């Protein structure tokens, strides 16, 4: 593998300090993945908060059988997926303080990428935006590491085709 990020080895337990450490060091990556999943900057902020709030409250459930960050990724990804399901599609805005409405072509891109099977889409997001290795992607998505490779390859192939069809 690859130049993907090697995230911290499994921790014995998920202390508040350890969770805060992940938040502070990797917050921007969590936000970017959540933005890609929800399609909305405000909803992404909400999802990241929700995921970390769950991690704090359920930290005793973390068994230390995988990296803490990968466990948190699973919570954040699930929170973002739930948010996306609950919300009607909305135009995106960037994370700037005075963000305006998104240009129409971003909305079109989002609709295009939404055609990918969800697992492929999420694997691509985690790989590209968060630079996770296959094991961490597997933990985050609840699939075997061996499956990640094929899922990711299929997702990237489809995206490449889409990228060639649209004017960026």
């Amino acid at each position: 593998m690859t130049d993907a990020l090697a995230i911290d080895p499994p921790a014995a337990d998920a202390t508040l300090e350890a969770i805060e450490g992940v938040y502070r060091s990797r917050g921007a990556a969590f936000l970017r993945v959540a933005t890609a999943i929800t399609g909305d900057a405000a909803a992404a902020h909400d999802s990241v908060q929700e995921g970390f709030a769950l991690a704090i409250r359920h930290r005793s459930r973390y068994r230390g059988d995988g990296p803490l960050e990968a466990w948190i990724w699973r919570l954040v990804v699930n929170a973002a997926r739930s948010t996306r399901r609950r919300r009607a599609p909305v135009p995106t805005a960037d994370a700037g303080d005075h963000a305006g409405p998104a240009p129409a072509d971003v909305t079109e891109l989002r609709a295009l990428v939404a055609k990918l099977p969800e697992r492929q889409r999420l694997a691509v997001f985690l790989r590209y935006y968060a630079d996770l290795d296959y094991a961490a992607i597997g933990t985050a998505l609840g699939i075997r590491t061996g499956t990640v490779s094929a899922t990711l390859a299929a997702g990237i192939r489809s995206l490449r085709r889409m990228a060639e069809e649209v004017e960026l």
Partner: protein
Amino acid sequence: MSEFDPKTTALLDRLAPATAAGPEAWAYVVTRPEERRWCRLTRRRALVLALAVAALAAATAAGGVHGLVTRYFPGAAHEAPLDIRREFKQILSQSTIEGVREVTWLDQRAIRRVAHFSTPRGPYDFYVAPLTRPGSLCTLTVEGQTTVVDQWCNHPPAGRRYGVIALAQVEPGVWTVAGRTPAGAPIGSVTVRFEDDTETVAARGPGWFVYLVDPARLRPGHRPVGVDITRTDGTRLRRFDFFPGCIRQLPEDVHGVSTSCDGQP
């Protein structure tokens, strides 16, 4: 990363642009309550739910309880909807401070939804509007996401960069501690101190902070007594003190009337 060709990379970057800004302050996360999901309404859950509804109805009828703050929102996102901006602009256009129209200092795009709370009267959204006048801050209580039911502004003396910290009752039994800070100040945290020598972290955004007082903190002996603003290196930047005796339950018939207990600037 080699597996992504330039066109795919461009597509993904367009979809979720890289941003230097990370998520909001850690304080938002640790103060955020969990969203509870009732996946299946089992017999036991149904019983608990029925008992809770009955208890809430009884408490509401007695007028003795109000809902808790349900959540805080990040400061960078959650801009106020257009109708809220317009309504607030209209409100401010009708008032003056020392001969100057308040609306002069309004930057509508800076209005942010920062909290959501519930009372027996229903759910409310709470907004802050940092004004362009240094130290000035307005807050809005909004019902049903569209109607401003209460508005309160604070203007410190000219030349002050920190807003006077104030306690204001935005709804019966719902008190807030809010204030304005200079946008560029090296602030690490804003904490609210209580009579029982405990403290809690206030939610914070660029140029403002806010804390909706936990109902348990309204009892004598536990009320807010002040605010400390701390630098990123942990040293204290400012300290403000309140007179907690002004916190009291107002009668139900003064709905919508704000009360404030200013701190020392």
